[in-house]
């Protein structure tokens, strides 16, 4: 048993190789983030405030406690904020030059952290229980720990809205991209069937609308080669049994969310100490799943998987010559050799009296969690 454990440790050290935390950093201060969290988990990444996409994280490496680092994302950024109003008009695409729209942050906007170049905050914060396991009366066997997370955030002023874009890196190896909308409501008056009465009485009906937020994640698990995407389903409805169905996406794909459905990106050659391929799981279960008209086909799916092309950056209104205009068109028939994942998360906002003013932030996002990155929970104490 002991020998097996030792062997596993050696395997783990041998399989998760470069990029090593000791290698030359791919970026410098103030663009470098290298944060060790209280439980020993460590995240290394670079950030950039791009003119079009705004805050972009690049070269993201997760270093589990006691192990070597593993490259996760080559880059991650917002890819569109599509805002159609319920009466049919107006319909906005809120990217927008996000970079120049970034709001200078105060120290109070970045509690416990450090502002980088005024518009980016890098901080850490508690995330509640990491685990809790009773000792059945034996305090020595009781396991309880509080978790923490690294946050890299920026805020943008787009019209009435202030958007807060967060990249949250958990001390459990998870990544949570999320967008919060705050600022003010538009103040558009509509008919009762498209809105909700705000203000005194029933004179002003604030128009309901959607925020369909797209993220682009270029996964490169230990480099750009060999990455594979799988979709998992669990068949069985109204029955006792559930049967796992694995679909390997060999070609570009458009997928919709479904109960229990998730995806993962893995590199079959990068293994953990148990010999299982290292992967990151993507779930998108918290979306209002907006579906627009035919000319907004980019809203018709919840996850897109495309072959990497440098010019494909926005999910709609992409502006690059010799490049398609939207993500539904990127997802053609190409064979996947270097997959990029696009996640579409919708939030339908029906205003309420509490939304004025300033509007309390409402969040939308999704989770990326490690699956078999380490052979066991490295934070069990």
């Amino acid at each position, binding site marked *: 048993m002991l020998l097996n454990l030792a062997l596993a440790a050696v395997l783990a050290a041998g399989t998760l190789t470069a990029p090593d935390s000791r290698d030359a950093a791919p970026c410098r201060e103030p663009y470098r983030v290298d944060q060790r969290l209280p439980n020993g988990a460590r995240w290394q990444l670079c950030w950039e405030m791009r003119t079009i996409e705004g805050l972009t994280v690049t070269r993201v490496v997760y270093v589990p406690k006691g192990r070597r680092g593993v490259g996760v994302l080559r880059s991650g950024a917002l890819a569109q904020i599509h805002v159609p109003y319920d009466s049919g008009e107006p319909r906005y695409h809120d990217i927008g030059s996000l970079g120049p729209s970034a709001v200078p942050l105060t120290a109070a906007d970045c509690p416990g952290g450090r502002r980088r170049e005024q518009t980016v905050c890098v901080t850490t914060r508690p995330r509640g229980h990491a685990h809790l396991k009773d000792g059945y009366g034996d305090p020595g066997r009781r396991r309880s720990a509080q978790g923490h997370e690294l946050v890299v955030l920026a805020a943008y002023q787009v019209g009435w809205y202030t958007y807060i874009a967060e990249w949250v890196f958990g001390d459990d190896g998870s990544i949570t991209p999320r967008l919060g909308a705050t600022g003010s409501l538009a*103040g*558009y008056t509509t008919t009762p069937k498209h809105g909700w009465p705000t203000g005194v009485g029933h004179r002003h009906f604030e128009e309901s609308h959607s925020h369909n937020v797209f993220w682009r994640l270029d996964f490169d698990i230990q480099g750009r080669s060999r990455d594979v995407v799988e979709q998992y389903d669990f068949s069985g409805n109204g029955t006792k049994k559930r049967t796992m169905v694995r679909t390997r996406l060999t070609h570009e794909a458009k997928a919709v969310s479904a109960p229990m459905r998730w995806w993962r990106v893995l590199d079959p050659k990068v293994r953990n100490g148990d010999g299982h391929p290292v992967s990151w799981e993507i779930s998108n279960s918290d979306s209002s799943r907006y579906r627009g008209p035919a000319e907004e086909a980019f809203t018709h799916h919840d996850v897109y998987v495309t072959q990497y092309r440098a010019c494909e950056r926005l999910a709609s209104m992409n502006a690059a010559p010799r490049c398609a205009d939207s993500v539904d068109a990127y997802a053609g028939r190409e064979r996947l050799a270097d997959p990029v994942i696009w996640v579409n998360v919708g939030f339908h906002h029906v205003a309420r009296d509490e939304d*004025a003013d300033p509007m309390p932030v409402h969040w939308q996002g999704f989770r990326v969690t490690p699956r078999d990155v380490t052979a066991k929970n490295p934070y069990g104490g």
Partner: protein
Amino acid sequence: MRRGVALAGSALGVAVLAGALILLAGDGSPQAARTAGQQQPAPGDPLTPEEVGRASEIANRRHMAGGRVELLYVERDDDKAHEGDRRAAAYFYDYARDTLVVRTVDLGRGEVVAESKAAGAQPPPSRREEVVAAELLLADPRLGRGVRAEYARAAGRPLRSASDLGLRGLIFRGGPCRTHRCVRLFVRLPDERFLDTSRIVVDLSAKKIHTLEW
């Protein structure tokens, strides 16, 4: 509390907003690595101000014949195929021909290494375009009068120029703007109100205003 107020004789309305909403302007070159100093930038660093300036100069060296061409902005080229190189993409728009031109500059070699053009591709508006669009709005006799009146009411003094307004622009396509470069503006007044400009589209190619109907 908010309420919608229609401007007499104008297609503009005003959304009245209460509460503290402060629109803070950036400096227009967010991608510029301002504190990198004289040190050579690392591969993942944003472009330095010096690199942005040099990329603009190199991209502008070869004249673009005819047209009405403006440099929108310079973005770092993040193509993985050129991982170690310092490259920049300079976005130009030709309003006369309604064509986007992107010139890729290799800063190490000091030259343009690629140029691509497309009609119909509309990158987000630049800060300068937002101001130009506001100037066109102010030049419209009816709408301009409405904006000035609302500004004077909010600020207690007359509008001096378009840059007095809090501006943010988004690209509008469709309708009269299928081929032209058009923006829809958000216009914030000093008293935190926003003009209701949702139906107003500024056509930068034709230098005119369209009012949408729905």
